[in-house]
């Protein structure tokens, strides 16, 4: 029943949902960031280096990675967000590439293109910790690798649910309404007394924080990272989650990440054409349904019908 392969896919879905949220939050004020792969790599590398080289506990590494991504997000956001949206897209695209170049070239710290291996593993560390207290997987009728996969899945699921709960509350609050107002009409929002620059930097740096957080989790789930994990393609993939799933409702990126992570696994032969499909999705969605598959009217209809199931949305 507990298949480590399915659990692993489920864990990647959850990480991708967090990544999808990271770009959704930035998009919620109408800003497009193409640098989320860069922030992801900052989180991943910071946490990996702190745990491998300094020996800090994993939680401290993940927090430090997220925090650093957040701070750099503020630094990048301030000069670019005062201008119109395309500047941010270009500057963040450049930022992502520069971070990757930096990680490739800073060989003394990052081992360059080879990457960092032997990063403390989330599941294995948990298991080792529990075994010290006299626990063994067999007590639950599980093999060690099953227990490890299950632990990772449960931890990530808890984190994702907490994040979704937090952001659905946030978007229902005064702050969330300010985001929507800025997205709909920045000038009007400013005239209404909303501090647009503040909220734009807030959403951008929150997106950076989440991307860094997802990157740190990614590092501790896979145990190995290299600059090739954080290319421009990753940034586009993150963008596709939100654009396909829906960039105006919180469930959009969740659905996008779920659907687009499961689909290539189900259709193995398709993985070669994955980026063709991503590219086509971007163009077709912009032409026919720029708000994405899920939008508010559709969600209302699904809710009204009750038990119609989310899968009908595809």
């Amino acid at each position: 029943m507990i298949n480590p392969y399915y659990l692993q896919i489920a864990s990647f879905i959850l990480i991708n949902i967090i990544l999808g949220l990271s770009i959704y939050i930035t998009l919620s004020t109408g800003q497009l960031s193409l640098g989320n792969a860069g922030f992801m790599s900052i989180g991943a590398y910071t946490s990996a280096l702190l745990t491998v080289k300094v020996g800090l506990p994993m939680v401290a590494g993940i927090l430090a990675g997220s925090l650093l991504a957040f701070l750099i997000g503020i630094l990048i956001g301030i000069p670019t967000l005062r201008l119109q949206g395309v500047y941010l897209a270009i500057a963040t695209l450049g930022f992502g590439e520069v971070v990757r170049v930096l990680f490739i070239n800073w060989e003394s710290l990052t081992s360059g293109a080879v990457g960092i291996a032997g990063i403390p593993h989330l599941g294995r560390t948990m298991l080792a910790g529990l075994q010290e207290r006299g626990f063994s997987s067999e007590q639950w009728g599980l093999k060690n690798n099953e227990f490890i996969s299950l632990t990772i899945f449960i931890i990530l699921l808890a984190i994702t649910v907490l994040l979704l709960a937090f952001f659905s509350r946030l978007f229902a609050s005064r702050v969330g309404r300010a985001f929507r107002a800025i997205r709909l009409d920045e000038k009007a929002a400013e005239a209404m007394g909303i501090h647009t620059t503040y909220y734009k930097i807030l959403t951008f740096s929150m997106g950076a924080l989440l991307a860094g957080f997802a990157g740190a989790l990614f590092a501790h789930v896979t145990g190995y990272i290299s600059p090739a994990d954080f290319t421009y393609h990753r940034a586009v993939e993150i963008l596709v989650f939100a654009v396909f799933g829906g960039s105006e409702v919180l469930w959009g990126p969740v659905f996008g990440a779920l659907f687009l992570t499961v689909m290539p696994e189900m259709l193995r032969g398709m993985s070669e054409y994955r980026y063709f499909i991503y590219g086509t999705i971007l163009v077709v969605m912009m032409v026919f349904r720029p708000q994405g598959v899920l939008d508010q009217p559709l969600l209302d209809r699904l809710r009204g019908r009750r038990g119609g199931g989310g899968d009908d949305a595809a």
Partner: protein
Amino acid sequence: MFFEQLINGITLGSIYAIVALGYTLVFGVLDIINMAHGEIFMFGAFVGMLLISYFEAPVLLALGGAVLVTAAMGLLLERLALRPLRGKKGASHLASLISTIGVSIILENLAHHLFGAGNKPFPTSFADASFTVGSTTVYLVQVIILVIAVLLMVGLSLWLRKAKAGKALRATAENLETASLLGINTGRIIVSTVVVASAMGGIAGVLVGMAFNYVNNQMGLPMGLKGLAIIILGGMGSVNGAMAGGLILGLAETFVVAYGNSGYRDAIAFVAIIVILLIRPQGIFGQALPEAKR
């Protein structure tokens, strides 16, 4: 040594300038960043490479072939990814950015499937020909690239300033609705702008192939990024800014590589973006405040 680097920098800069002109033309007329431009440039380089290495075509023919293919790609791009979004209610200004990102990803992978991964040699008969002026060695390739680039830039400037179509293009860039009221077929101007911009990308691709002697399917993104950095540096939509910005970036990169660390060459464009956004957000030649325009 210094003069050789200077010539290298100017050669590189003139290629950058042509790439940036492609961006700036489209931005000027459509207010759109064409994220697929770098990949169209890459296809131009591949077409040139195929013509030269398999059909042993002369450089001019390679340029012509690249122009034809990339112009056709520009036509398709406008038709499939830009026109359907235009005038659509509710489409945000990010829609065209996202759809051209989609096109760029499709093209990059198409090139991967068609031509394979890795570097492909770009053999030219005059790759090693050089002559010396004083103590400075000048490669024939550099002279050819410079001549083509300068001809192209002068031609484009003259066309924009004197020709009827060029004037119509500038009028459309100034204000699309007014131009349309004055009897300019703006739909056609938009198509021809994207086509001309793409063709310039194609030419730049062949020139890069000649300059570096190889092409690969990953070359679009870094070049595209540099083109974008240049138009921010020179001022969005400014033709002179694109040329000056291209030269500045080409020289800066060459001298950083010559006297510093070559690994960080690709980072210079990004640093330039951030610095210019901090001190002069409208760019060197830009006039309108970017905040006011949308």
